[in-house]
């Protein structure tokens, strides 16, 4: 009973504090929201608006409704080829995710030379994609270093024009991009592994788990959020990070073998002056990526 006045006082103070917070809180957040609206959302929406126009950048845009999307979805074989190629790229996602994970595990377990490998794996990521692609253009030529080595070790039958053959061009571009970027995955995984409880690994070892069992039952569950995060980063890379490699290595060819939506965006915008159409492709790619992110986040939230 004696506590009641104190309780009332506390409740009144809490109420007042909430009132104050509900007034000042949004005000403090307002600058950040304004920055986002002015520099992110407005340009994004304004850009998307051009997807509904026929615009060559020289004349005023002409409103065409959904005509660009209709053409993209039903009448543009180049876009269809680019989408098929994109799916082929997405099929390689497990390699992009698992390769750095396995290498990070080996480094984490201090295999001989782990310090060297840690630096060596990350080094290509520091280089510009253009430089990496330029180097590989030389390496992958018919008379380049790769084919010379293959011939030297008696595998001359495998020596092909890696970037100029329909079957090998896209896998080669993917391989170069993977080589260039997997190092950052290794570093991200290493950071996650550093926070993993060693007791769990020790317990698994005591229980007689082998390397793969430890990986599957202990390591992957422990760093799952990091794997999911890296998966999103990689998908983003696949959707919008391969342009420099395509531009430098194959120019989209042979035929349409290495066309991806982002290359098509560049071609329509820069070469063909079709800014409205290019924006329509960008908008589609944006929404595809948004859907992937939403699925990913919802899945993550549900699991937590």
């Amino acid at each position: 009973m004696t506590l009641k006045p104190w309780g009332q006082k506390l409740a009144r103070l809490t109420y007042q504090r909430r009132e104050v917070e509900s007034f000042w809180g949004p005000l403090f957040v307002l600058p950040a929201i304004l920055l986002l609206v002015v520099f992110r959302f407005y340009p994004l929406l304004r850009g998307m608006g051009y997807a509904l126009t026929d615009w060559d950048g020289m004349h005023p845009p002409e409103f065409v409704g959904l005509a660009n999307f209709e053409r993209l979805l039903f009448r543009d074989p180049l876009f269809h080829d680019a989408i098929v190629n994109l799916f082929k790229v997405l099929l390689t996602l497990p390699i992009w995710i698992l390769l750095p994970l396995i290498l990070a595990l080996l480094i984490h377990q201090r295999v001989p030379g782990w310090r060297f490998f840690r630096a060596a794996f990350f080094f290509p990521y520091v280089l510009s994609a253009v430089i990496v692609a330029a180097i590989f253009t030389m390496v992958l030529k018919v008379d380049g270093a790769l084919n010379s080595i293959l011939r030297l070790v008696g595998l001359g039958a495998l020596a092909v024009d890696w970037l100029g053959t329909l079957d090998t061009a896209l896998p080669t571009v993917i391989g170069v991009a993977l080589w260039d970027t997997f190092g950052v995955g290794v570093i991200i995984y290493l950071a996650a592994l550093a926070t993993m409880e060693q007791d769990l690994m020790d317990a698994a070892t005591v229980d007689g788990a082998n390397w793969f069992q430890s990986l599957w039952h202990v390591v992957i569950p422990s760093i799952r959020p990091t794997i999911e995060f890296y998966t999103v980063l990689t998908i983003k890379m696949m959707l919008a990070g391969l342009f420099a490699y395509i531009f430098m290595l194959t120019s989209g060819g042979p035929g349409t073998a290495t066309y991806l939506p982002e290359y098509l965006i560049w071609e329509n915008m820069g070469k063909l002056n079709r800014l409205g159409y290019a924006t329509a492709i960008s908008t589609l790619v944006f929404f595809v990526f948004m859907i992937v992110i939403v699925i990913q986040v919802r899945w993550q939230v549900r699991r937590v």
Partner: protein
Amino acid sequence: MRNKLLTLIGLLVVVSMLATACVPPPTPEVIEKVVEKEVVITATPELEEELEPITLTIWDFKSGEEVFAPYTRIIAERFMEKYPHVTVEVVPQPHDEYYNVVGAAIAAGEGPDVLLFHGGTRLTERQDVLLPLDEYIGDEADSFINLHNGWTNTETGEIIALPITIQGFVYYYNKQIYEEAGLDPEKPPITWDELVANCEQIMANTDKSCFTVGGKDGHGIRFYGSLYAASIFTPEDHARFRAIEMPYDDPKMAKQLELWYEASQRGWWQEGAASETTYMDSHDNFSAGRAAHTQGLISDVAHWKMFSDYLGANNVGMFKNVVIDPEVYDNVEDIPIAAGGGIGWSVPEWTPNPDMAVELVKELTSPDGQLLLFNSAATIIPRNDIDPDLITSPQAKQVNEWLKNAEMPIFYITPTDLNSEWQRQSSLLLLGEITPEEATQAMVEFYDAR
């Protein structure tokens, strides 16, 4: 509540997109008004003393090249001496990305005061933002060769750029390889059949490829196709092509793809041609003596001067074309050289100083300027008031002689999207993945779907 919020956000997105679509960006009309207003206060040379300092910015894709840089630098210096209130800034842009950069400037409605363009489609596709030069240059237009062939607005006929080179395509061959193959180095082929026979002999007797080509960047088919077309098109065909009245299933368009396919199937190209570029893989191959022939340019790069520098002038031969269809031309001398276009300077309408920008263009294209460029880059000069005795190179003289009968290369007047599809189909033909008939069909479908 959450659903309502999502619906509200969705509505906002749709409304904003629609609203944005209806809001025009800065239009050329608006820019014109600004320019008109500025013209009043723009300098004229007579009033120089009272003039406010101005800066003229030049964008080009050539000043990064060693042989080209002195030309723009020296002209800029001379211009600044002549007009002390003007500062000229030369901004070299990357060649591959040039039209993207220009496209961004056009979309923004602002950018440099003077732009370098390739003559033909790459200029005329942007003609609506370029200043007509007729009234600025007056009678001086008569001093330029074929100005109305690639340098004028296709709708109004007004001059929109002044050229500094004439560009075109010819065949080059390596006389040493001819000798090695047992061929007469002084007797280039004059018919397609002779070319076929020569190639067979070269491939049989040497380890060199008969031709070198770039299959990756699409210039291969564009350049070789232009040579094929020059040989099989009548003047009426050229007129039809210019008027965009020659469909891709026309026998003469299909023939170009057949010839390209035949060359590929005969194994004329170097190994790895599909992944090599014309600039400069293909031309480097020829310069290094790895191929007996190549298609090359007539001016400033990948031409007689460059190849002679590498192989020795005595080892480089050139021929204008070969007879492919005797019913069209049965004498190789009658075939017009595939030449026109080149590169030239223009002034965008957004410049606040159009008078001085045009003055700068006139300086850049003056006889002195052209000779400066000729001496450093060995260009073919598109002016008729140059003393012919100043041109001493026998190859340059030969090209000038050939230019008396020229037809615009079809590549220069083909819309860019069709050139891109031409490129894609050519790379598949080069690999033997499709037949010429399939490539022709694909071109027709692409054209119809535009």
